[in-house]
């Protein structure tokens, strides 16, 4: 099981993630082309301007009026994206398998960032229950997705801290990580891929077409 997870499973997961992502983005752009009233209003300058205002903490009024949520979501997402890519253990495995290697985070920092992801996920999960509006619009899949997203971080943290049986945990870690990658293009986690597209389109509609600010 460990060998399978360590070898083919990870490769398949990456292939599905990369292939699926390309598929979603390209098919969406083709569909947008067919809708006719989208691409004429896309402007790189205004699109980028809009993206910048929303990927910088407190860059938009909605971020400013929700300061604690803003800090939470930015820390969660930054750690979520960077930790897996910059963890020493991952880079060592990639060097062994694919001869790829780059700079890694000091282990203490990557542990801390892992904890942030786990805590952030738990807070998001609880917010879905506690906030009446968010609870009203949430379905069971929203809760499951949070669990899938933080599962590799929980198991990664356990493996690193040698909690429970290492071999079992690391296998679960790899399986959950593979699942994490595979669901990105095919569930609401696709917001990771679509964010630049929807944001850029809105930036064009507001900035290029209407000469107005959208942040």
């Amino acid at each position: 099981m460990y060998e399978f997870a360590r070898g083919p499973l990870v490769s398949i997961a990456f292939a599905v993630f990369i292939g699926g992502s390309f598929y979603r983005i390209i098919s969406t752009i083709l569909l947008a082309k067919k809708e006719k009233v989208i691409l004429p209003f896309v402007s790189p300058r205004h699109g980028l301007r809009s993206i910048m205002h929303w990927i910088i903490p407190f860059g938009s009024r909605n971020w400013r009026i929700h300061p604690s949520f803003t800090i939470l979501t930015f820390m969660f997402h930054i750690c979520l994206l960077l930790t897996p890519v910059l963890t020493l253990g991952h880079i060592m495995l990639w060097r062994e398998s694919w001869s790829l290697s780059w700079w890694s985070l000091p282990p203490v920092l990557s542990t801390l960032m892992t904890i942030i992801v786990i805590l952030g996920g738990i807070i998001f999960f609880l917010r879905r229950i506690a906030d009446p509006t968010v609870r009203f619009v949430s379905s069971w899949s929203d809760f499951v997705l949070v669990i899938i997203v933080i599962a590799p971080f929980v198991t990664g943290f356990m493996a690193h801290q040698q909690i429970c049986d290492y071999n079992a945990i690391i296998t679960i870690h790899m399986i959950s990580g593979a699942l994490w990658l595979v669901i990105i293009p095919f569930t609401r986690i696709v917001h990771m891929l679509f964010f630049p597209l929807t944001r850029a389109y809105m930036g064009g509609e507001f900035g290029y077409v209407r000469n107005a600010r959208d942040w």
Partner: protein
Amino acid sequence: MKKLTEEQQVVDPGLDEQVKKLTPEMIQKVVKRVLTKEASARLKVYIDTCVRCGLCAEACNTYLSRNKDPQFAPVSKVKNTLWELVKRKGNVDGEFVRNMARIVFTECGVCRRCSMYCPFGIDIAYLLLLVRRICSLLGVVPQYLQDTTNSHAATMNQMWVHQDEWIDTLQWQEEEAQAEIPSARIPLEKEGAEVMYSVIAPEPKILAQLLGNMALIFKVAGVDWTMPATDGWDNSNMAMYSGDFEIMGRVERLHWETAARLKVKKIVMGECGHAFRGAVYDGPRWLGWSFPPIPMVHAIEFYYDMLKSGRIKIREKYKEHVTIQDPCNTVRGRGLGDKLRYVINELCDNFTDVDPRLEHNYCCMAGGGTINCGPPWKRSRMKSNKVKAEQLAATGAHIVITPCHNCHSGIEDIIGFYKLGMHVKFISEIMVETMVIPEELKG
């Protein structure tokens, strides 16, 4: 049985009687047509991308005004309508359609503030307009709103104004203006004029003095202008908001064709927001143009140019304490908020801005066709905009200036309902009071 809310008990034949005629097959057919043939990329991406974070909630004046009732968050309105239609593939009953129509027509003014507050830029107002489109194709539209659409279909204007009444009103207002400036004119059908001036039907119907005001302003500014004597003068376009896009397209086409026939260099749109939106955005796109075929400026921009260039000078600034209502379609929809403030500061001595302001200002809860849903829904609209009443009261002003007919009527309603003791004015009303009329023009 579940207790019905006050809003659910409102009687409106446009909804109540119409849903009785629906069959499940009709509903499914229309839903399928709109969701698969008329909408594609945006609908799909928006539905897939929404992570249900709830950050759009506080963008909405209805949510803020109703003690943060989750049902009034923009995302909830989408969940209660569009998500269900998609999930059930249109397999819904008449009662669902009735509720859906109530939500999208009377509890949302498609002001696009939520679209601006979504971190992903999901155009929530567009999604709710799609639902209006479905309601319109099913014939389930609040009766008063449908009546304005019918008026557009029959007379090409919003208020059943006939051509003889139109011409007669313009000539009457020309005479009124001539009492001030004997040489003032409302030139009809002047081919090759620099400007065609566009208004909406409420002006000749109930606010005719605004036309006389413009005759004075154009005369003082020395603008070569004209108005059509034929249909095609009104582009207020409630069909755009009722979901009848075919009628919307007809109205806009005639408007542009009229301007083309008169060979004008540009159109100045009077103080109306949704007419501007229809003419500049929704109309051209429906007709297959990315941008309008003839340049069009809104009255705010026109006044700004006239004041900035000195073609209109101010004799004595207006003394009353004033504040502002930013219309969604010209401020969020055209970025004219700063120019609007320039104009107001030029005209008025004592101006207090609102908070939040500019693109972030709250909706009037009258635009987007909501006020056109008529008296049955007025109380609901008022409950949906307590936040606006509080915002205006906080300025301490006595006069609210707004260059938009919907905002004008909506704010008047709010002032009355919440007993704010304020009055609403258009810019032109203050401009004719304060501008310099050169001696040579006075008879």
